[in-house]
């Protein structure tokens, strides 16, 4: 094996030398291992015969070099690339240390900290204190994050995309290395705004949260009503002031990586925090600054399909109160969160809320019925009128 390894190292060196001989005059820092000799071809990939998924091994150099990881070597993340083909390559673990020095601590940088924080969150895999079921449903780093391409802004007031040459000029006064300075500028400016648009964020969250089966496995109901809201319509039109999922679930003061269940006081949508979340006084978006306590009550996503069906069935007298209770039993978050005695079932509706839901559903049905009867009657009436006119005309009667 040792022999193998040394051969491989030797080989890598050779390939590297060979490739640098012919390479253009500039050499990408990230590709000092000459990975792109093979990985620059878009067709490099295959269909996994077991899962049927396509595995694409193409990495566009241009994109990579302009991405947030552009300075990281391939082997820093892809460990164990000792042989070709890379049969024993390990799956990338984002929490490994990546041999870049983090300037504030002068230690090796790692996503390990945030990964650990994430694991204690509602989306996290597990912690020693709590175990979770169906861990394959839970999101991994790469389910939300891709190797983002830098999207710097040139102006903080308009958030216009691009590089402010004026700002860069001042940096270059001291920092002579233009490439480094440019990169440093982008490092900051990229983080002055969200790299995902609100529509993308909503799509990302809903990819899982609209899936009824997946949600049911965790005692949750699928989010079905966000897209009926005014919030979503504004997002769809591209209004930067309109809230996507994270505007409410991870506003200023909360982070997306430590999302908690709604019954946890650490959650932005916990009863105690809701008014502050709606008014969003610390955020850049102007939401409901005058939100009263009353405004910030009630369920924003009450209509899980199963839930609405049961309630409407209940209204129609088909379900008994017992079934309502069993419904409440189903929707517990026990498996997902560390349940303490103070935690309450957040899906549990009090008497008043059940009454309100009933009123809402009845009004909706009554109105639909009203429209059907009124418009249907009108159509029938006009149809009769029209037919009578035609009959009269055919009989030669004027008018």
């Amino acid at each position, binding site marked *: 094996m040792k022999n193998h390894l040394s051969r*491989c190292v030797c080989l890598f060196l050779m390939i590297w030398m060979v490739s640098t001989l012919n390479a253009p005059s500039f050499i990408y820092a990230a590709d000092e291992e000459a990975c792109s000799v093979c990985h620059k071809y878009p067709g*490099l990939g295959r269909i996994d015969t077991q899962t049927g998924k396509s595995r694409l091994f193409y990495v566009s150099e241009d994109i990579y070099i302009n991405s947030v990881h552009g300075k990281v070597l391939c082997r820093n993340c892809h460990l164990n690339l000792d042989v070709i083909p890379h049969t024993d390559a390990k799956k990338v673990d984002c929490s490994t240390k990546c041999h870049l020095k983090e300037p504030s601590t002068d230690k090796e940088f790692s996503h390990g900290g945030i990964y650990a924080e994430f694991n204690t969150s509602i989306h996290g895999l597990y912690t020693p204190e709590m175990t979770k079921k169906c861990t394959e449903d839970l999101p991994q780093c790469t389910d939300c994050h891709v190797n983002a391409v830098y999207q710097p802004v040139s102006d903080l007031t308009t958030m216009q995309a691009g590089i402010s040459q004026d700002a860069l000029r001042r940096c270059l006064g001291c920092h002579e290395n233009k490439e480094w300075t440019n990169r440093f500028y982008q490092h900051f400016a990229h983080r002055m705004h969200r790299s995902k648009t609100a529509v993308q964020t909503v799509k990302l969250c809903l990819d899982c949260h609209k899936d009824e089966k997946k949600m049911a496995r965790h005692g949750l109901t699928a989010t*079905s009503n966000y897209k009926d809201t005014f919030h979503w319509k504004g997002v769809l039109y591209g209004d930067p002031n309109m809230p996507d999922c994270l505007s409410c679930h991870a506003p200023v003061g909360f982070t997306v990586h430590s999302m908690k269940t709604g019954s946890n006081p650490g959650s932005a949508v916990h009863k105690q925090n809701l008014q502050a979340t709606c008014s969003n006084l610390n955020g850049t978006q102007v939401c409901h600054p005058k939100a009263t306590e009353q405004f910030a009550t009630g369920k924003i996503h009450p209509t899980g399909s199963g839930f609405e069906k049961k309630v409407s069935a209940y209204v129609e007298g088909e379900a008994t109160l017992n079934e309502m209770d069993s419904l409440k039993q189903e929707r517990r978050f026990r498996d997902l969160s560390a349940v303490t005695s103070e935690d309450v079932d957040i899906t549990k509706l009090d008497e008043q809320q059940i009454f309100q839901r009933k009123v809402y559903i009845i009004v909706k049905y009554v109105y639909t019925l009203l429209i059907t009867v009124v418009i249907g009657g009108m159509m029938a009436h006009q149809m009769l009128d029209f037919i009578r006119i035609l*009959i009269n005309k055919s009989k030669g009667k004027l008018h």
Partner: protein
Amino acid sequence: MDSDKIIGKDGEMMHNNDNLPKEIVRLNGPERLQHLITFVTFFILVITGYMLKMPEAWILKLGSYGTTIFEYRGLVHRIAGVIMIIGGLDHVRYCIFTKAGRSFIFAMIPTLKDVTDIIGNMAYYFGQRPEPPEFERFDYREKAEYLALVAGTIIISVTGIFLWSEVYWSKFVLDLSIMIHGMEACLATMAIIVWHFYQVHFKPGQFPMSRVWIDGKMSNHHLKIEHGAMYNRLVAEGKLAPVDEHDHHGHHGPKSVKQVFVEFMTYCSILFFMGVMFLLGKLLYFPPTYSAKAKTPSTGFDRLIHSGDTAKYTRHFHNVDDTVNLKLANPQFCVTCHGTLPHSKAPDIRSFLNMHSYFMACEVCHDREENFSGKFNYVWFDNMTDEKIDKIEGSNGVYGARLIPVLVSDSNNGNEIRRMDEAEDPNFIKSYIAQKDILTPEEQGKAKVIIHKNMAKKPVQCTECHNSKQPYIDLARVGYPPKRAESLYRTEVADMINRYMQFYLPTMFDPDLMRKQKMNELKMENRSTD
């Protein structure tokens, strides 16, 4: 009936029939203004309101204009709403404090006659009586519509104000308000189209449009038909000239261009409003749902197909660009069946082999010249236009073209016989694909043998091309830049292969050897070699 002042020639009451007015003022100035304000604000409100219910794809098409449109949408909706409410309050003032208004509102009050009129009119529609009942100033249709308008305006204004002052209300009030606001809007829009537009716009006799809302006038002829009771009363009172039966009504002779145009536009508007009705009905009864059941592809083959969708590519961590989707205008049968990533058997080299399918046809390696009577010319064909290309542009295998062998006859004139990637018998393959599912496995096997009969037993091996001594294809002649051809023969690529064969995987690029080696391994481990 002061609003229905009779217009005489000199503005005076005339008693001679010839000098009596032939038309009445049905809507006076203030009423026409009220109608105009309601009409304009209603349409603005409907449009700006339903912009929130538009299909998502339409909204996304607005692109960067969406933000601005959305901003003004809310503003315009509020302004129009306020004007509508002010107009409504003004109408209340008009009905209370002016004489004309009081007569208007009294004429609008439903009476017992309306009930008998409805029954009578229905009897007329069903042919049970020869003439419709004679209506007063406002018939039951107009009264119903007016009352619906009043009720609707109140409901929609109140809920609208609730929504505007949202921070003071609970979620329940707001939920209810937004639902009722939308439902009432739906009801109003549909009623306007079905009830009002038919009555004053589409109905034969009114077509293309009643002009009462513009000049306020109605002829005695028209009045007699639609409001017989009022006509009789006015004639009896000597305030209106009776209809002259010899008088010609309506237009005769050829239609003017303007008339034809207006009628054409009216037909268009009928179609348009039918479309609107359809969309509203869809919204009401089949609102879009946004939760979904997980789709599980039914068969393994389906799964394979689904895995290739672009959604998967875009989620790739390394942001693969569009070049991974090989686009062919006319994909040959090889590609339609085997896909653009066809190789999967040889684990050590399958990805390398797949890479080649992005810039060369399967037949480059899988057809050998000696199996055909003729010679192979290797020619670049554009992926989209299928035209021949002399010089390739681009890099990393992304040339927008693929290398395809063309069979030419042996004789001196070198006639082209066919492109090798085109099937010799396409109809056979088509019918095979169509009937594949009903064939037995044996029949399928036989058909496949026939389809693949020209394929070389041993495809062209890596080192047959990537060697400098006797390359299988003259890459420089084929159109590669000399430097690139050189690297393919000797340096970058060929060297890598060579070294791999020497140092690490002597069998790597030779599937036969590899298979033998795998077999030996399996035997060593006492496992089945089937």
